[in-house]
Protein backbone atom coordinates (compact mmCIF):
# COMPACT_ATOMS: atom_id res chain seq x y z
CA UNK A 1 0.00 0.00 0.00
CA UNK A 2 1.86 3.09 -1.09
CA UNK A 3 -0.63 5.61 0.28
CA UNK A 4 -1.51 7.26 -2.98
CA UNK A 5 -5.21 8.00 -2.74
CA UNK A 6 -7.10 10.13 -5.18
CA UNK A 7 -10.02 11.71 -3.44
CA UNK A 8 -12.89 13.83 -4.66
CA UNK A 9 -13.81 15.24 -1.27
CA UNK A 10 -15.70 18.45 -1.09
CA UNK A 11 -14.15 19.45 2.23
CA UNK A 12 -10.41 19.56 2.86
CA UNK A 13 -10.88 18.65 6.51
CA UNK A 14 -12.42 15.34 5.55
CA UNK A 15 -9.55 14.63 3.18
CA UNK A 16 -6.87 15.26 5.80
CA UNK A 17 -8.74 13.20 8.40
CA UNK A 18 -8.88 10.36 5.91
CA UNK A 19 -5.18 10.62 5.17
CA UNK A 20 -4.43 10.51 8.88
CA UNK A 21 -6.56 7.39 9.30
CA UNK A 22 -4.77 5.76 6.37
CA UNK A 23 -1.41 6.70 7.89
CA UNK A 24 -2.44 4.91 11.10
CA UNK A 25 -3.33 1.77 9.15
CA UNK A 26 -0.03 1.97 7.29
CA UNK A 27 1.84 2.14 10.56
CA UNK A 28 0.02 -0.95 11.80
CA UNK A 29 0.90 -2.71 8.53
CA UNK A 30 4.57 -1.78 8.94
CA UNK A 31 4.53 -3.20 12.46
CA UNK A 32 3.08 -6.45 11.19
CA UNK A 33 5.60 -6.65 8.35
CA UNK A 34 8.39 -6.34 10.92
CA UNK A 35 6.84 -9.09 13.03
CA UNK A 36 6.86 -11.34 9.95
CA UNK A 37 10.58 -10.69 9.44
CA UNK A 38 11.44 -11.26 13.11
CA UNK A 39 9.35 -14.44 13.30
CA UNK A 40 11.06 -15.78 10.17
CA UNK A 41 14.57 -15.22 11.52
CA UNK A 42 13.87 -16.19 15.13
CA UNK A 43 11.96 -19.35 14.22
CA UNK A 44 15.16 -20.76 12.71
CA UNK A 45 17.10 -19.82 15.82
CA UNK A 46 14.71 -21.02 18.48
CA UNK A 47 12.61 -23.93 17.22
CA UNK A 48 13.93 -27.44 17.01
CA UNK A 49 11.21 -30.08 16.93
CA UNK A 50 7.70 -28.86 16.11
CA UNK A 51 6.07 -31.61 18.13
CA UNK A 52 6.01 -30.17 21.63
CA UNK A 53 3.88 -27.26 22.69
CA UNK A 54 5.50 -23.84 22.76
CA UNK A 55 7.27 -24.09 26.10
CA UNK A 56 8.58 -21.18 28.11
CA UNK A 57 12.17 -21.76 27.00
CA UNK A 58 11.25 -21.24 23.36
CA UNK A 59 9.14 -18.26 24.42
CA UNK A 60 12.14 -16.64 26.13
CA UNK A 61 14.36 -17.46 23.17
CA UNK A 62 11.98 -15.76 20.74
CA UNK A 63 11.67 -12.63 22.89
CA UNK A 64 15.45 -12.40 23.34
CA UNK A 65 15.95 -12.94 19.63
CA UNK A 66 13.71 -9.96 18.83
CA UNK A 67 15.57 -7.75 21.32
CA UNK A 68 19.00 -8.77 19.97
CA UNK A 69 17.85 -8.27 16.39
CA UNK A 70 16.71 -4.73 17.17
CA UNK A 71 19.92 -4.00 19.08
CA UNK A 72 21.97 -5.24 16.13
CA UNK A 73 19.99 -3.10 13.71
CA UNK A 74 20.45 -0.01 15.88
CA UNK A 75 24.17 -0.67 16.33
CA UNK A 76 24.70 -1.04 12.61
CA UNK A 77 22.64 2.06 11.82
CA UNK A 78 24.48 4.19 14.34
CA UNK A 79 27.91 2.97 13.31
CA UNK A 80 27.11 3.42 9.64
CA UNK A 81 25.92 6.98 10.25
CA UNK A 82 29.12 7.65 12.17
CA UNK A 83 31.23 6.28 9.33
CA UNK A 84 29.43 8.41 6.75
CA UNK A 85 29.77 11.54 8.87
CA UNK A 86 33.47 11.00 9.28
CA UNK A 87 33.71 10.99 5.49
CA UNK A 88 35.04 7.48 5.43
CA UNK A 89 32.74 6.40 2.61
CA UNK A 90 33.94 7.21 -0.92
Amino acid at each position, binding site marked *: *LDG*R*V*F*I*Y*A*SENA*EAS*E*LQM*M*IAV*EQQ*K*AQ*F*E*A*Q*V*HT*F*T*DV*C*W*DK*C*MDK*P*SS*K*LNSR*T*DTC*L*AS*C*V*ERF*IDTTLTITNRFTHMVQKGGMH
Partner: protein
Amino acid sequence: MDGFGSDFSSGAGSGKMDTGTIMEQVKVQIAVANAQELLQRMTDKCFKKCIGKPGGTLDNSEQVTVMPVYFICRLMGWYMKCNFKPQIRCTFEHANVMLWDWVMLTDIFVCLLQKCIAMCMDRYMDAWNTVSRAYNSRLQRERARI
Protein backbone atom coordinates in the same frame (compact mmCIF):
# COMPACT_ATOMS: atom_id res chain seq x y z
CA MET B 1 -14.81 10.96 -13.39
CA ASP B 2 -11.37 11.01 -14.93
CA GLY B 3 -8.26 10.90 -12.85
CA PHE B 4 -9.67 8.61 -10.17
CA GLY B 5 -7.35 6.07 -8.61
CA SER B 6 -8.74 2.74 -9.69
CA ASP B 7 -8.16 1.18 -6.28
CA PHE B 8 -10.75 3.21 -4.56
CA SER B 9 -13.46 3.68 -7.14
CA SER B 10 -16.89 3.38 -5.66
CA GLY B 11 -20.15 3.39 -7.59
CA ALA B 12 -21.07 6.08 -10.03
CA GLY B 13 -23.02 9.09 -8.92
CA SER B 14 -21.70 11.81 -6.71
CA GLY B 15 -18.01 12.70 -6.83
CA LYS B 16 -17.73 12.59 -3.06
CA MET B 17 -16.37 9.31 -1.66
CA ASP B 18 -17.47 7.84 1.62
CA THR B 19 -14.70 7.89 4.19
CA GLY B 20 -16.01 4.71 5.75
CA THR B 21 -15.96 2.86 2.44
CA ILE B 22 -12.41 3.91 1.69
CA MET B 23 -11.19 2.86 5.13
CA GLU B 24 -12.92 -0.49 4.75
CA GLN B 25 -11.14 -1.10 1.47
CA VAL B 26 -7.80 -0.03 2.92
CA LYS B 27 -8.18 -2.36 5.89
CA VAL B 28 -9.20 -5.28 3.69
CA GLN B 29 -6.24 -4.78 1.36
CA ILE B 30 -3.83 -4.66 4.29
CA ALA B 31 -5.39 -7.72 5.92
CA VAL B 32 -5.17 -9.73 2.70
CA ALA B 33 -1.51 -8.79 2.18
CA ASN B 34 -0.77 -9.71 5.79
CA ALA B 35 -2.44 -13.10 5.46
CA GLN B 36 -0.56 -13.84 2.25
CA GLU B 37 2.74 -13.00 3.89
CA LEU B 38 1.93 -15.18 6.89
CA LEU B 39 0.91 -18.17 4.78
CA GLN B 40 3.95 -17.91 2.55
CA ARG B 41 6.42 -17.87 5.45
CA MET B 42 4.52 -20.51 7.39
CA THR B 43 4.50 -22.83 4.38
CA ASP B 44 8.23 -22.36 3.88
CA LYS B 45 9.07 -23.13 7.53
CA CYS B 46 6.72 -26.06 7.93
CA PHE B 47 7.83 -27.63 4.67
CA LYS B 48 11.38 -27.56 5.92
CA LYS B 49 10.40 -28.93 9.33
CA CYS B 50 8.19 -31.76 8.13
CA ILE B 51 9.73 -32.77 4.82
CA GLY B 52 13.30 -32.12 5.84
CA LYS B 53 14.69 -35.43 4.72
CA PRO B 54 13.26 -38.54 3.07
CA GLY B 55 10.85 -40.20 5.49
CA GLY B 56 11.58 -37.38 7.86
CA THR B 57 8.18 -37.31 9.50
CA LEU B 58 8.76 -40.60 11.26
CA ASP B 59 11.46 -40.77 13.85
CA ASN B 60 12.94 -44.08 14.91
CA SER B 61 10.59 -44.77 17.81
CA GLU B 62 7.52 -44.20 15.67
CA GLN B 63 8.80 -46.50 12.97
CA VAL B 64 9.22 -49.34 15.43
CA THR B 65 5.72 -49.09 16.90
CA VAL B 66 3.61 -48.00 13.95
CA MET B 67 4.81 -50.29 11.18
CA PRO B 68 4.12 -53.69 12.81
CA VAL B 69 0.65 -52.55 13.82
CA TYR B 70 0.04 -51.40 10.31
CA PHE B 71 1.07 -54.72 8.76
CA ILE B 72 -1.02 -56.78 11.15
CA CYS B 73 -4.03 -54.60 10.52
CA ARG B 74 -3.56 -54.85 6.79
CA LEU B 75 -3.41 -58.63 7.02
CA MET B 76 -6.78 -58.57 8.74
CA GLY B 77 -8.25 -56.26 6.12
CA TRP B 78 -8.10 -52.92 7.93
CA TYR B 79 -7.07 -49.88 5.95
CA MET B 80 -5.68 -46.74 7.50
CA LYS B 81 -7.76 -43.64 6.91
CA CYS B 82 -7.15 -40.01 7.84
CA ASN B 83 -9.89 -37.78 9.21
CA PHE B 84 -9.52 -34.03 9.45
CA LYS B 85 -12.52 -32.97 11.50
CA PRO B 86 -12.80 -32.39 14.39
CA GLN B 87 -9.10 -33.14 14.58
CA ILE B 88 -6.55 -35.00 12.52
CA ARG B 89 -6.67 -38.65 13.45
CA CYS B 90 -5.50 -41.79 11.75
CA THR B 91 -7.95 -44.64 12.15
CA PHE B 92 -8.37 -48.07 10.68
CA GLU B 93 -11.42 -49.02 8.66
CA HIS B 94 -12.36 -52.45 7.53
CA ALA B 95 -12.51 -53.44 3.93
CA ASN B 96 -13.64 -56.73 2.52
CA VAL B 97 -10.55 -57.15 0.42
CA MET B 98 -7.31 -58.44 1.92
CA LEU B 99 -4.32 -57.42 -0.11
CA TRP B 100 -0.63 -57.04 0.33
CA ASP B 101 -0.44 -53.61 -1.20
CA TRP B 102 2.87 -51.85 -0.72
CA VAL B 103 1.50 -48.63 -2.13
CA MET B 104 -0.67 -48.40 1.00
CA LEU B 105 2.45 -47.73 3.03
CA THR B 106 2.10 -44.14 1.93
CA ASP B 107 -1.06 -43.92 4.09
CA ILE B 108 1.01 -43.67 7.24
CA PHE B 109 3.44 -41.18 5.85
CA VAL B 110 0.73 -38.91 4.47
CA CYS B 111 -1.25 -38.98 7.70
CA LEU B 112 1.73 -38.26 9.90
CA LEU B 113 2.89 -35.60 7.51
CA GLN B 114 -0.45 -33.84 7.80
CA LYS B 115 -0.24 -34.06 11.58
CA CYS B 116 3.26 -32.61 11.46
CA ILE B 117 2.14 -29.73 9.29
CA ALA B 118 -0.88 -28.99 11.47
CA MET B 119 1.27 -28.93 14.61
CA CYS B 120 3.85 -26.79 12.87
CA MET B 121 1.19 -24.27 11.86
CA ASP B 122 0.00 -23.97 15.48
CA ARG B 123 3.58 -23.50 16.69
CA TYR B 124 4.20 -20.84 14.05
CA MET B 125 1.12 -18.88 15.10
CA ASP B 126 2.25 -19.11 18.75
CA ALA B 127 5.72 -17.91 17.76
CA TRP B 128 4.24 -15.05 15.74
CA ASN B 129 2.19 -13.89 18.74
CA THR B 130 5.20 -14.10 21.06
CA VAL B 131 7.32 -12.06 18.66
CA SER B 132 4.53 -9.52 18.24
CA ARG B 133 4.29 -9.01 22.02
CA ALA B 134 8.08 -8.74 22.39
CA TYR B 135 8.36 -6.18 19.58
CA ASN B 136 5.45 -4.18 20.96
CA SER B 137 6.91 -3.98 24.46
CA ARG B 138 10.30 -2.97 23.02
CA LEU B 139 8.64 -0.14 21.08
CA GLN B 140 6.86 1.03 24.23
CA ARG B 141 10.14 1.06 26.12
CA GLU B 142 11.84 3.06 23.39
CA ARG B 143 9.02 5.61 23.36
CA ALA B 144 9.09 5.90 27.15
CA ARG B 145 12.77 6.79 26.94
CA ILE B 146 12.04 9.72 24.66
